[in-house]
């Protein structure tokens, strides 16, 4: 009886300590916006990546032009949309509705614009440059295939399968640094210059 009580007590103590130990990582990081996997806010216009990027096979950088040119991939300006939707008015009722929303927002360049909700939010103290990753970096996959530029899907998931944009990965430091290390190892294995900064805090934090 007493022995049982003793065991119970010790289990209780450990049981109480565990959430505290586990809580450490949560408390420290829970507020970071970059952890929201499956974050899929309702957008003012229910734009479908599956339709545009998947079915219609439009290249990511047709709209997200900045990814190739600078730090920000950027949400396209509305004239990019209007370029096609001037003529493409949609077949289904929901598509027509969405395009009408776009038309209203754009209004021949005089509209109110669209306030999209950001899906991928890196913490502010992290510097990330799309151009470096999309245009300069070399990517080697697990099978050793080398590609110039990293496919958007590596971080953003396969948007051709998503409707409204959704966050796939937890964009944590661990996510970044582990990829950098893997890539450097694969580059070294392939006798290519390993250029992903690993031991360089100032690459992202400055």
């Amino acid at each position, binding site marked *: 009886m*007493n*022995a049982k*009580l*003793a065991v119970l*007590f*010790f289990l209780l103590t450990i049981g109480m300590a565990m959430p505290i130990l586990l809580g450490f990582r949560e408390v420290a990081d829970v507020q970071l916006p970059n952890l929201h996997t499956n974050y899929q806010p309702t957008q003012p216009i229910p734009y479908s990546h599956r339709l545009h990027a998947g079915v219609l096979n439009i290249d990511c950088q047709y709209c997200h032009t900045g990814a190739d040119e600078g730090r920000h991939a950027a949400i396209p300006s509305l004239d990019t949309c209007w370029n096609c939707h001037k003529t493409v008015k949609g077949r289904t009722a929901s598509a027509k509705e969405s395009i009408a929303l776009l038309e209203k927002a754009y209004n021949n360049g005089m509209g109110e614009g669209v306030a999209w909700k950001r899906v991928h939010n890196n913490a502010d103290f992290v510097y990330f440059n799309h151009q470096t990753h999309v245009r300069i970096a070399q990517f080697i996959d697990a099978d050793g295939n080398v590609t110039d530029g990293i496919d958007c899907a590596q971080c953003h998931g396969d948007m051709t399968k998503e409707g409204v944009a959704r966050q796939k990965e937890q964009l944590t430091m661990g996510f970044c*640094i582990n990829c950098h290390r893997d890539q450097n190892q694969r580059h070294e294995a392939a006798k290519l210059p390993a250029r992903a900064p690993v*031991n360089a805090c100032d690459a992202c934090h400055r």
Partner: protein
Amino acid sequence: MADQRPDLFLGVFREQDHTLEATKACREAGFTFYDVFAPYAVHGLDRAMGLPFSKITWVTFLCGAMGCIIAISGMTYVSAWDWPLNIGGKAPFPFPAFVPVMFELTVLIGGLCTMLGLFAMCRIFPGKKARLFHPRVTDDRFVIAIEMDEDFDESKCREIFAQHHAEEVKQVGPDYEAAVAEGGAA
């Protein structure tokens, strides 16, 4: 279980020297000690009862060694294996820098485990009800509790107790859990 346990024969003493001598005498007489109770650590009483040295030293040694190993392996993993950063131009495995933490973790884990080991060996834990064979056994009374088994000789025992100025001699039944006073006022 309780019905199989023998009755206990108790002698209550006021002086540590009397208790010590009585204990020795009881042991010479070949009685089985249930236990001896004292308000403070009386030197030699444990040996007089024939108790061996405590094994708790092993707990300390093993757990302390474990603490040291945890420290050195953990620090090596963190500093030299998981991410060998260049910090102040020092090597990824700067052993001298690890010594303080190795020592501290040895002491910490060794110490904490000793505490837990002590509680386990003494079978005490918070909430356990104290079983007192005399209300003032934690104040100024000493109690010798002899198991009334086949080696027990009551008259001899009474004689020993009386010889050593026992204040009180009594027998408690096999269900002594209920017979003894629980922790409380004198």
